[in-house]
């Protein structure tokens, strides 16, 4: 059995870029314990000598010429949904 603490939840929330309320942290702590314990059953599976599968389509590398493809989408259309723009650029809070 795996035990999840509120510290674990706070750490993973930070990794996830999520602000959580105290109540949410409590709820997730209990729920994560249940979910992690369910997936723990994988630990008892014998996978000695078995390779992992990362994709199911068996594609080999496909190369193409390094040419610009016109996606038919203008920069204006892509910037339209940004909350703040200035001079054709997305505006963010100052970093430094």
């Amino acid at each position, binding site marked *: 059995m795996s035990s999840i603490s509120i510290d*674990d*939840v706070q750490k*993973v*929330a930070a*990794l*996830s*870029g*999520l*602000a*959580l309320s105290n109540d*949410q942290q409590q*709820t*997730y702590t209990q*729920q*994560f314990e*249940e*979910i*992690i314990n*369910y*997936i723990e*059953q*994988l*630990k008892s*599976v014998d*996978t000695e000598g*078995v*390779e*992992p*599968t*990362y*994709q*199911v*389509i068996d*594609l080999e590398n*496909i190369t193409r010429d390094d040419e610009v*493809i016109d*996606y*038919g*989408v*203008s920069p204006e*259309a*892509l910037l*339209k*949904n*940004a*909350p*703040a723009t200035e001079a054709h650029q*997305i505006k*963010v*809070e*100052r*970093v430094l």
Partner: protein
Amino acid sequence: MKSAIQPIVNDVQAGRRTATQVVGEALEKAAASTEYNVFISFTKERALKRAKQIDDRIARGEAVGPLAGVPFAAKDNFLTFGGETTAASNILKGFEAPYQATVIEKLEAAGAICIGKANLDAFAHGSSTENSDFGPTKDPHDSTHVPGGSSGGSAAAVALDIVPFAIGTDTGGSIRLPASYCGVVGLKPTFGLVSRYGVVAMASSTDVVGPLTTSSYDAALVLDVMAGKDEFDSMMYLKREASYVPEPTNEPLKIGVVKEYMGEGLEAQTKSRIEAQIEALKKAGHTVEEVSLPSVKLALAIYYVLVPAEVSSNLARYDGIKYGHTSSEAHTLSEVYTKSRGEGLNDENKRRIMIGNYVLSSGYYDAYYRKAQTARTLLINDFKRAFEQYDLLIGPTGPGPAFKLGENVQDPLQMYLVDIMTVSVSLAGLPAVSIPAGKVSGLPVGLQVIGDRRADKQVLALAHQLEGLSK
């Protein structure tokens, strides 16, 4: 041939009805069914404009596509013009797509007309459509029950006869389970057969696009339009079948019944509905035998490691910067991220992102993520062995009929367990279709036909045959 699509195309092409009339009727039916909360938004103006274009072409004697004038609903995680695309999440409220999904472009080129955006669990995270930030959709057969999810709105739109087909996405059962709960046909094509470009990503190693219809024949008609290589989706097969429409055949098949799906966890009456279908197949001359795939018991545990891991990566793009909700309380760049995401994503989205980051984090990666990817190989090998012996596999789509609204909301693990019969197919990249297999206490249950990779046509052919047998 049972079809809701073909009669519309025939009528529109022959001038018996106009596309404008057909689309107008679909919009009226949708307006009369608001109690089920099927749609998040409508694309009425664009739909009527496109219908008129088709009518004008026909009036001029010009050729129109194979789905000319056919109205459809798109799950709201497909980027479309003519309105917002929200993925049922508050974080995307107000988002207007700068381009359309490849499948939307293909369907439009074939003459089909999108009338609206169907409800889903936000970001497709769920099995009941209760995780939508726009309220749950209700099961057309009993409004106190869930329609299944995550493509619950798409399934309900077809079940309510608003549209003859809808499109959805299936990452672990999100087309098949709602098809089962709503009594319609839901096809999850082979992974890599239909482009995902312009679809809000959930888990890129299992996400597929597919149709929900009233017959396997119609599912094939829609797949015929949607399938095939797209330069903008790098995970695709280079070739496809010329047509997926089932051809009449009397060839006896060897069909395996997945033993692990018929045992513990399967509701008794649902089991008897599936057994009745098995008997019908035997009577029709097929060999039907039980086959054991021991690793499918691990599938849900594998799925709930790998999918959250991929979700955590795919949902990192919602940062309050490029599009979507931005917190008005944020004063630093870091707060823009954490507060925008904290406010805009819902509990289930956060749960999956955090579980994903947990299993990927240092010290746990080998124990969970790599272990799950390795167990996935065992699961795929089980299917490979089964398809050496059998042409196709069958089993129930879900453990029973639709559950009640609210029944599993407080218990995420219990909610995850309804996907126990669908996730293994997703992890292995196989095609599967859910078709109605009768009712239990007035609620539909589904049977799932599973094929080897790229056997979509064979899967649809057996489903088509079963539809004929159960009449």
